[in-house]
């Protein structure tokens, strides 16, 4: 079999001769390739996006959490089983590999301003180090300092600030917010942070108060999570070991679980891989449907062109020439479908990224996959019809009409 420009030209012409059928067959391929591309591409975008957000936080961060299970949180017994603020503050002293820690306590209770309830605002008790470790910055006023212990000051996220302004606060600083039964005075506003980061809270919708205040005013307050920054020049693993032995040295103290960014990234990548595989599988099913469409078109085409096959055989075409002719046709058909599918898939993933506010990444591997897969579909589903054509007896083919 020889592939020459004239073969390709002829294949294109015969596909054009039956436009309707060609277009109908293409729809299956376009959807099939398109979904594979869209899925692989969206998977890639999500992956890049989460990694990007993670990297924004830095990879020298350890998350220390109280290990749950074993000791069910009985009311009144928490103070014993929970992490003590003093213990936490001593971590950098006990572990040279940790440069700073930021414990936090989640608050509950209704938040209101001027008598209006704020729905999208969660109070949280933090320390001064919290701002820097979580890569947040202050837009207006100042953040909480270590001198604000037991104070009634608060710093608000940008969306909370917007909410206050909507509810008639002309001067953000100095506004009073009610959390449960306590009034807090706003002393600062943090800058807007891109959504969906790796932080385990929503920075824009948080009201920060000092952790000591939080521990006192929040109902059932308990320090559940500590973010720790690893000292420069130390590995996360050695830092983790130090923290573990630090907590072990406390004796009957609480068990902790330490998560490093590498673990989270690895876990995330594994998840994404599964996701991509799953989506790819769904795409493959539509591809098979599309491929069967191509096979159908080619079988009809072979049946309709039996006489042509006979003529070509009489003029000296070998079986391989005939097989090649029909194979080229089905591959071209699939490649055209693949080209539209790629455009469709990339477009779809762009739209998804646009609406999800993710950064769009053009995945070259998805493009190559699209071309490769459509080629494979053409060859795989075109082979049987092409073989049928090549095995036709010349005289039978010539006599048919």
């Amino acid at each position, binding site marked *: 079999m*020889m592939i*020459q*420009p*004239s073969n390709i030209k*002829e294949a294109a*012409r*015969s596909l054009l*001769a039956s436009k309707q059928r060609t277009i109908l067959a293409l729809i299956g391929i376009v959807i099939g390739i398109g979904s594979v591309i869209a899925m692989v591409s969206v998977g890639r975008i999500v992956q890049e996006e989460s990694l990007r957000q993670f990297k924004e936080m830095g990879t020298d961060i350890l998350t220390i959490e109280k290990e749950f299970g074993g000791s069910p949180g009985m009311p009144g017994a928490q103070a014993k089983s929970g992490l003590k603020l003093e213990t936490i503050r001593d971590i950098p002293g006990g572990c040279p590999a940790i440069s700073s820690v930021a414990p936090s306590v989640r608050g509950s209770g209704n938040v209101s301003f001027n008598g209006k309830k704020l729905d999208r605002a969660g109070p949280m008790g933090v320390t001064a180090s919290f701002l820097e470790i979580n890569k947040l910055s202050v837009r207006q006023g100042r953040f909480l300092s270590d001198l604000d212990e037991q104070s009634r000051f608060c710093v608000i996220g940008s969306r909370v600030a917007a909410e206050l302004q909507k509810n008639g606060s002309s001067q953000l600083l100095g506004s009073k917010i009610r959390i449960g039964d306590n009034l807090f005075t706003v002393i600062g506003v943090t800058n807007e942070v891109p959504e969906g980061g790796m932080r385990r809270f929503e920075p824009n919708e948080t009201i920060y108060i000092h952790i000591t205040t939080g521990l006192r005013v929040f109902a059932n307050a308990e320090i559940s999570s500590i973010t720790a920054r690893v000292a420069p020049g130390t590995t996360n693993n050695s830092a983790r070991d130090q923290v573990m032995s630090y907590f072990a040295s406390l004796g009957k103290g609480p068990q902790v679980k330490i998560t490093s960014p590498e673990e989270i990234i690895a876990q995330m990548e594994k998840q994404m891989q599964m996701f991509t595989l799953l989506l790819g599988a769904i795409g493959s099913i539509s591809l098979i449907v599309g491929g069967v469409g191509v096979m159908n078109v080619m079988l009809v085409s072979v049946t309709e062109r039996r*006489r*042509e096959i006979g*003529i*070509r*055989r*009489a*003029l*000296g*075409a*070998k*079986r*391989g*020439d005939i097989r090649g002719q029909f194979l080229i046709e089905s591959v071209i058909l699939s490649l055209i479908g693949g080209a539209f599918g790629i455009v469709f898939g990339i477009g779809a993933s762009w739209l998804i990224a646009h609406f999800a506010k993710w950064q769009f990444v053009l995945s070259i591997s998805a493009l190559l996959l699209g071309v490769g897969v459509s080629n494979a579909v053409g060859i795989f589903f075109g082979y049987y019809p092409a073989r049928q054509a090549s095995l036709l007896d*010349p*005289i039978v083919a*010539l006599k048919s009409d």
Partner: protein
Amino acid sequence: MLTLRDIRKSYRIGPTEVDVLKGVSLDIQQGELVSIMGASGCGKSTLMNIIGLLDRPTSGSFMLDGAEVSYTDDDALSEIRNQRIGFVFQQYFLLSRLTALENVALPLIYRGNTGSDSHDRCMEFLKRVGMDDRAHHRPNELSGGQQQRVAIARALVGNPSLILADEPTGALDTQVGGEIMELFKSLNAEAGITVVIITHDPGIARQCKRVAVMKDGVIVP
């Protein structure tokens, strides 16, 4: 150049065997202009298909240019059709999507020759049959006689030693058919190409140097 000995061909149609050729022996020399004449159903088309290597006999011996034809290698048969035989059919059998020029080029394409010399060669043969001014027309833009001329150019372009024509004038009126016959005669006379014409028309057969009459699957002596 052609030696057929006791060629038999039978088809199985359902439970019955139908003998179409019942022992045909025929010799055709290089440069002959032969017609094989007979009523429809006498087996002349089957004979032509066997001579043209489009069909294989049930039994018998077929020597082409001194060599026994082997039916085991399909590619070799394709090659012989491509190199040594030119077909002309009653229904012209041009490919409707291709222009006259592209139709003529087909035998060369199957030789792997698609260069510019191929284009020149096709034009040369189109000129020879008087169709060079219609080279870029599609078959449906040509009259029956014109289509048959293109088909003859296609049969000639591969420089075959044998032209097999199956009722070449059957679909044409007398005058155009006469012109086509003149073309065959001049090809035979000038280029020395062996021409075998299958026909049921005694008027056509009479124009050939030799007539083999077929009846009921055998050649009547």
